[in-house]
C-alpha cells in the first residue's frame, strides 16, 4: 500500500490584508524526502515555514499533515503535532541560554511528550561531535557547536519533519557544510527536511530544490555555481 505523503498542500492562499503572499501554492512531500526552498526576501518563505510549522493559519486551500487536515485541527492538537512531529532549526541557534545543551535537548523531548532517552541524547551528541559539551551552557560553545546543539535538540524527538530556516546562514563554509552533512545524514535523521536557504550550494545538497515565486512553488533551475 502506498504511504500517505507527509505534506500535501493544494491551492493554498495566504494574504496579509490586501497583500497576497501565497497564491495557489501546492506542495507534496513524502516521508524522508529532503527539499530546499529558495526565494527572494519577502517572497513568503517565512510565512510558508510558519504554515508548515502549524503556527500560521491560511486563508484558503488544503493542507494535510501526515494525512490530517490541518485547518480542521484544534489549537491544542496543532501544538501537540508541532511538538511531537516537527523539529525546527534556525539561522541562529536559539538555544535556551540558561539551560545546558543536554537540558535543552531534554526540554524539547519533554515538550514533545517523548521520554528523553539518555543513550539517544548521548549518541546524537557524539554524532555531531559534542560528547564533551553536554553539560555546557550555550554561551560556552562556539557558533558551530551551538548550531549543532540546536540540530541535536531538533532531532532528539525524531520528528517526521525538520524545518530549517537558513541553517548555515551564520556559519562559515566549512562549519556550515558539516552541519549540513549531519542534517542530511540518514544514519542520524531519516525524516523529511524542508530547508529555506539563499545559498545555491546548500540547496544543491537536497533531493529537490523549489523556488517560491509569486506565491507559488516552482522547480528551481539556475546556473550552476562556479
Amino acid at each position: 500500500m502506498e504511504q500517505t505523503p507527509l505534506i500535501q498542500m493544494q491551492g493554498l492562499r495566504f494574504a496579509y490584508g490586501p497583500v497576497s503572499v501565497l497564491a495557489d501554492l501546492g506542495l507534496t512531500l513524502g516521508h524522508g524526502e529532503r527539499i530546499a526552498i529558495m526565494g527572494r526576501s519577502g517572497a513568503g518563505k517565512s510565512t510558508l515555514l510558519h504554515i508548515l510549522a502549524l503556527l500560521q493559519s491560511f486563508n484558503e486551500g488544503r493542507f494535510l499533515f501526515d494525512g490530517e487536515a490541518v485547518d480542521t485541527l484544534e489549537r491544542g492538537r496543532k501544538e501537540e503535532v508541532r511538538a511531537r512531529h516537527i523539529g525546527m532549526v534556525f539561522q541562529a541557534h536559539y538555544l535556551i541560554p540558561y539551560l545546558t545543551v543536554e537540558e535543552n535537548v531534554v526540554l524539547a523531548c519533554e515538550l514533545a511528550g517523548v521520554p528523553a532517552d539518555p543513550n539517544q541524547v548521548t549518541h546524537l551528541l557524539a554524532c555531531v561531535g559534542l560528547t564533551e559539551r553536554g553539560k555546557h551552557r550555550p554561551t560556552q560553545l562556539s557558533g558551530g557547536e551551538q548550531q549543532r546543539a540546536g540540530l541535536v535538540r531538533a532531532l532528539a524527538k525524531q520528528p517526521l519533519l525538520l524545518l530549517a530556516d537558513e541553517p548555515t546562514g551564520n556559519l562559515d563554509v566549512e562549519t556550515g557544510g558539516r552541519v549540513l552533512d549531519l542534517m542530511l545524514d540518514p544514519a542520524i535523521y531519516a525524516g523529511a527536511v524542508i530547508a529555506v536557504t539563499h545559498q545555491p550550494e546548500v540547496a544543491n545538497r537536497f533531493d529537490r530544490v523549489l523556488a517560491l515565486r509569486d506565491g507559488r512553488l516552482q522547480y528551481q533551475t539556475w546556473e550552476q555555481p562556479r
Partner: protein
Amino acid sequence: MSGGHLRHARRYLARHLGQTLLSGLGIAFSLLLLTLTQASQRGTFEAVLREFEGLGQNSALLYMHENERLPPRFFEGLGRLSDNHQWRTLPIFESALGANAVGQPVQARVLFTDPDFTAVFQPKLAAGDPLREEDQHVNRAVIGSTLAEQLGISLATPHVKLGGEWYQVRGISNGLQAGGSQIHQFLNIREAALVVRPLDSLLHGNRPLKFVLIRTANREQLADVGRRFTHFLAESGLDHLRYDLRLPLKQNQLTARSQALLAAHGGLVGAVCLLLSCLGILISYQLQLRYRREEFGTLIALGASPAFIGKNLFAEVLLLVAGSGFAGMATGIAACIPVAWVWVTPMSPHPADWATSVGLLALVALATALPPALLARRFDPIELMRLHR
C-alpha cells in the same frame, strides 16, 4: 501547572541568581519587617496583658474632659475620696511621662533597664499593708526621666515618699516601655504615665490629668463611683468638668482591642511593604516579557504553547515570591532574639502570626504571578517566531 514547570522555573531562577536575589529582596524584606512587627506587637500585647493582669475586674476608668491643668484641690479631693471609700487610685497623666508613648524610650530606659534595680526594688508594702498578689501588679510605677527627676527618683535613690510613706518603684523596662504605647492605644491618649498611689506628692507637679483609674476593694463599690465622683466634683468646685465613667474596665475588651490593633498594625505594615514589593516584581516581569521574547519564541518553536510559557512564568514568580517570603520570615523569626536584646523590646514570634503571613504570602504570590502568566497567554506565536530570523 506540573512539576516540569516548577523545575524549569527553579532552573531559571537559580541561573539568574543576581536578578532573582534583587527581585526577591523586597518581598524578603517585607516579610522580615512583617514578622518583626507581628512579634513586636504580640510581645507588647502580652507584656501589657501581664502588666494589667487582674486590673479591670474591680476598676473604673474616669476620663476628664479638661485640657487645662487641674488645680491641686482636685488631687487633694481625689485622694480623700479614694481613702474614704477605700479606692486605690492610679492617675494617668497626659504629659508627664511621654517617653513611652511618643517614641522616646531612652528617657524611660535610663531609669529602668538596670537589672540590679529591678532585682533589688520589689514592692512589698502599699500604704503600710502587705501587697496582695494582684496589687503587686498595680502598685508599681512606670515613670520616665522627666517625672523621675521631678520626684527625685534616680538609680541612686530609687525611692519615693508619697503621702508620708516610702514607696519603692519597680520598673520592667520591656513590658512597661512597650506598654506605654499600648496603653496609649487602649485609652486613646497621646501621652501617659502610671504612678502609684497615694497622689499627694504628685499634686505639686500640677500636671494635666486625663484619666483616673480607680480600683476599689469590691465590685459593689464600683456602682457608687459615678455618684460619688459627681458629688466630689461639686464639692471641689469643679463641676464644670465633664467626665466619662467607664465601668468596669473589661479585660476581654482590652484583649479584643489589643488584638484588633495587632492585626491592623501588622496588616498595614505588611500590606504597604508587600504592595511595593509586588509592584517591583510586576515591573520586573513586565520587562522580562519583552526581553525574553527570543526565549519564548524558541519555546514556541519547540512546540510549547503561549499557555505553557504562561505557566512557566507563573511558576517562576510563585517560587520567587514564596522562596524570598519564607527566607524573610525565617530571618525575621531568627532576628527576634537580637532585636529584643538590642532594643530591649518584647518580641513574641508566634505560629498564628506566621500562618497569617503565609496566607498573605500566598495571596501576594497569586496576585503577582497571575498578571505575567495571563499576559504571556496572549503572546502571538508568529510575532515571537519573527524574532528567529
